[in-house]
């Protein structure tokens, strides 16, 4: 069988054809590659860089908060935060077990992390935040895939809870969320920097590719006017007193009389959970407003003295009770109609007597004095959440309220307002705004002092000195004898306010009165250096400890030695304590 035969080709020619075809294809490849690497390169390179370059924030280290003597109140220490990307974890069980072993996670935490690693639903899970740097390094050295360790500073209070009410706190991200930390957050935070780095898929950094694009600027340090020792003493004394008399809480303010610098600002309260008395995280000395009670008599009497409508020796016939508008107002104790001088009215804290003095002024004048003493508006602290208190305009007062404001009922003030008000008397008639921040320290260490507190004249020095003398008598022989301090003449005034209840009356649901007892004073009485407020919130209504003198006075007495020691206060050479010689 002879099929049609096609002629065979020449191998030589065919080899050359093959060669040409292959060479042509290789040239085509080279042209294509060349175009990718040259003319199209820029666009692709940008896309590539976007893919493998990451920019991350370098958090600036947060400024330290110092007390007036340079003791740290709050500071940031380097710490590590461990997170995991479950999608990059090869072996969930081993990874979870190793994390647990190194970090000491409890079983529940371990189980929840393991569940995340297995379900792989999320690409980022915190394992532990702000743990010791050493632990962080240990984790990093394990090189577990998917596990990331970054620096994240931890905020600590080196003095324990001391000053916590004022300092406030930062949230877990290191952002101020309360107190001074919140108020000065921007200053403390500084400016974060930027770092670029190249990453492998999944975000693992490539060593050696990190570069700092923008240097972080650390936050400023803050110097407070607080004195950590006095702050500590205040808190301790309050806790002890509140615990002893089974009250609900208390506040304490120590202030430098001449400058308004707050040396201590404490707040304690019985915890709902544990039942023990603890330093509060909120600063109730600035946030809570209560009736000042009789402490407000200081303002009424100083105003009357300044107006010249009375002298300390002016006398009044004072009944133990009297009808004003629709209420029968009375003194705290029953007495026959009595001839009382202004001094006696102050020393015995007579309500009716105070009304008699107050009646010598117009209601508008009295209201203006209250404002001038700093009531009814926030102090210069401008503390986060600070209350302005309640001081209705005199035209808005109604019923017996119009009268009772003269002795501190029908109004409300914060502890810091009240301390600043009484400080006017200590400071010879000049109001000086309270102050918590004495300066800042910049990144290079330069200190900028904050401006001195604003001041304004409220009463004449003579009226202030007269009032000082009356207040010294209150401590020597009046309602505040518990506040006496050995070797010093102390001046001050007690107050026993009633707390208005949610039901709109002064009686709680059991029909008991709820008290707010305070003592505000200063010493040495002859030349005041320190003004001090102690308030006890809700002392038991049925005990003798409910009054300002009995509830709050002893705290003053307990604190005085520490303050004397810390401030180096000397009694005046010619002082005779309470006229005893």
């Amino acid at each position: 069988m002879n099929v049609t035969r096609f002629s065979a080709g020449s191998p030589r020619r065919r080899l050359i054809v093959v060669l040409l075809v292959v060479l042509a294809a290789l040239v085509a490849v080279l042209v294509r590659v060349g175009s990718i690497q040259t003319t199209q390169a820029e666009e692709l390179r940008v896309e590539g860089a976007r893919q493998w370059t990451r920019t991350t924030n370098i958090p600036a280290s947060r400024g330290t908060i110092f007390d007036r003597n340079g003791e740290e109140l709050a500071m940031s220490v380097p710490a590590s935060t461990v997170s995991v990307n479950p999608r990059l974890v090869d072996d969930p069980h081993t990874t979870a077990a190793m994390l647990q072993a190194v970090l000491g996670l409890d079983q529940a935490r371990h189980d929840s992390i393991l569940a995340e690693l297995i379900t792989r639903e999320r690409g980022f899970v915190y394992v532990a935040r702000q743990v010791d740097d050493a632990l962080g390094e240990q984790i990093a050295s394990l090189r577990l895939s998917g596990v990331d360790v970054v620096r994240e500073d931890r905020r600590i209070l080196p003095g324990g809870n001391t000053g916590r009410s004022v300092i406030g706190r930062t949230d877990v991200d290191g952002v101020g969320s309360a107190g001074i930390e919140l108020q000065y957050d921007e200053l403390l935070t500084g400016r974060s920097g930027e770092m670029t780095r190249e990453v492998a898929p999944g975000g693992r950094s490539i060593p050696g590719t990190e570069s700092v694009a923008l240097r972080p600027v650390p936050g400023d340090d803050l110097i407070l006017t607080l004195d950590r020792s006095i702050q500590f003493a205040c808190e301790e004394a309050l806790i002890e007193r509140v615990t002893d008399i089974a009250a609900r809480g208390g506040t304490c303010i120590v202030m430098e009389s001449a400058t308004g610098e707050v040396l201590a600002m404490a707040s304690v309260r019985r915890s709902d959970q544990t039942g023990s008395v603890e330093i509060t995280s909120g600063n109730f000395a600035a946030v809570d407003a209560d009736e000042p009670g009789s402490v407000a008599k200081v303002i009424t009497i100083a105003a009357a003295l300044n107006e010249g409508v009375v002298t300390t020796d002016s006398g009044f016939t004072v009944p133990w009770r009297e009808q004003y508008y629709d209420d029968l107002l009375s003194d705290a104790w029953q007495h026959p109609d009595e001839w009382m001088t202004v001094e006696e009215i102050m020393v015995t804290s007579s309500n009716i007597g105070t009304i008699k003095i107050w009646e010598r002024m117009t209601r508008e004048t009295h209201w203006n004095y209250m404002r001038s003493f700093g009531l009814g508006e926030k102090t210069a602290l401008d503390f986060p959440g600070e209350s302005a208190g309640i001081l209705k305009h005199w035209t808005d007062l109604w019923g017996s309220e119009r009268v009772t404001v003269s002795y501190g009922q029908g109004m409300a003030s914060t502890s810091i307002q009240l301390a600043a008000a009484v400080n006017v008397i200590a400071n010879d008639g000049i109001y000086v705004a309270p102050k918590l921040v004495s300066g800042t320290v910049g990144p290079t260490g330069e200190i900028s002092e904050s401006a001195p507190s604003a001041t304004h004249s409220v009463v004449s020095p003579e009226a202030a000195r007269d009032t000082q003398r009356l207040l010294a008598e209150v401590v020597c022989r009046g309602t505040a004898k518990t506040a006496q301090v050995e070797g010093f003449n102390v001046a001050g005034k007690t107050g026993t306010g009633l707390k208005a209840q949610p039901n709109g009356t002064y009686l709680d649901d059991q029909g008991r009165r709820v008290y707010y007892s305070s003592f505000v004073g200063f010493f040495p009485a002859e030349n005041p250096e320190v003004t001090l407020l102690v308030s006890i919130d809700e002392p038991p209504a049925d005990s003798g400890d409910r009054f300002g003198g009995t509830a709050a006075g002893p705290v003053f007495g307990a604190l005085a030695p520490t303050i004397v020691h810390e401030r180096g206060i000397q009694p005046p050479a010619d002082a005779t304590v309470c006229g005893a010689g």
Partner: protein
Amino acid sequence: MTMTLAERRQATLERLELAGPPTPTGTSRPPRGIGARRRTQQFTGPPPIAYYVIAVVVAVFVMLGLVMVLSASAANEVGQGNSPYRIFGRQVMWGALGFVGLFMGLKIPYERWRPLVLPIAVLATGAMLLPFVPGLGVNINDTRAWIHLGSVSFQPSEVLKLAALALAADLLTRRESEVNDLRRGMLPLMAIAGIGASLCLVQGDLGSSVVLGAIILSVGFIAGVPLVFMSSIVVAGTGFIGLFVFSSPRRINRFSAFLDVAGNKDYLSYQTHQGFLSMANGGLTGSGIGGSNGKLGYLPLAHSDFIFAVIADELGFIGSVAVVGGFALFVYFGIQVALAAPDRFGMLLAGGIATWFGVQAIVNLGGVSGLMPVTGLTLPFFSAGGTSLFVMMAASGILLNVARRAR
């Protein structure tokens, strides 16, 4: 003026100071023709320049390949918690074996292989079925082309390529006068190509299938099979491949993704696109050895199928020119070797090997550069993959052996 082959070999060996007195060899029959003009030419000088160029290209490619495999695989291996030298070490081992293979190919006169060609091809065909033995074969990248023996893995299709090539060369040497005979020349050739390509296809390895078919067809083409036959086989083969591709929407998508790389960059042509990013990153002068970011895990198979993208990244366009140019030199001088081969078997062997490397390089580079679909073929001498390196080096040895004996 005429010298027998034996005499000429002896002269060469003496010149190389390698040989003692002449020994009779069994291969004294006169070479059979490529062309009358060549037949009269005599070469008594040193080995042709092709011998040296091919040797240098192979040596440089193998060494550069080892460096690039280390560079492309180390970071990824470390990321997976392995030694950075894991893949590199394996490649070095196969490179050493490959050197043995190369040396054997170089030293054993190529015609000695002829009696062994059929048994080797049968063995290689059998080996192609081993990946389907449970416990022996493994799935890698959707193909079933690998067998694992302990820690050593082996890809029989690489061996099959060389075996089938040699078989076709032997066949068309024996039936030189029958290349234009449909039954005696065409059908056996088609059987070799068809069986080999089908086996690769059964493994799911379309790339190897195409290359194997192309090699056999090239050998046939070079041997002088009439163009009518050739073109009908090409049409049939292309039709078959088209049928294979278009029988599955997934394959259609993967096949056509290269037409719009940027548009499919998130999924279908993710790998190609990442290759582009790497190549572009290299620019003209490259990011330096070790400087590629793609190999950190962005670019899949950076150390094997896509190693060219890493080379282009780290060595720049200069490196690309060197690699592509190196293949061009290899093919050019490989064809020169075929043209100067002392006999038809040598000619077909050399032409087949040169074409094979050229085609495989083109298919790999075409895939990486987005001119063709990505097929999963290795880049000869460069890609990590021990079997491929070993077989390529052994084939280079055979090519060099033919070159040494050029007339």
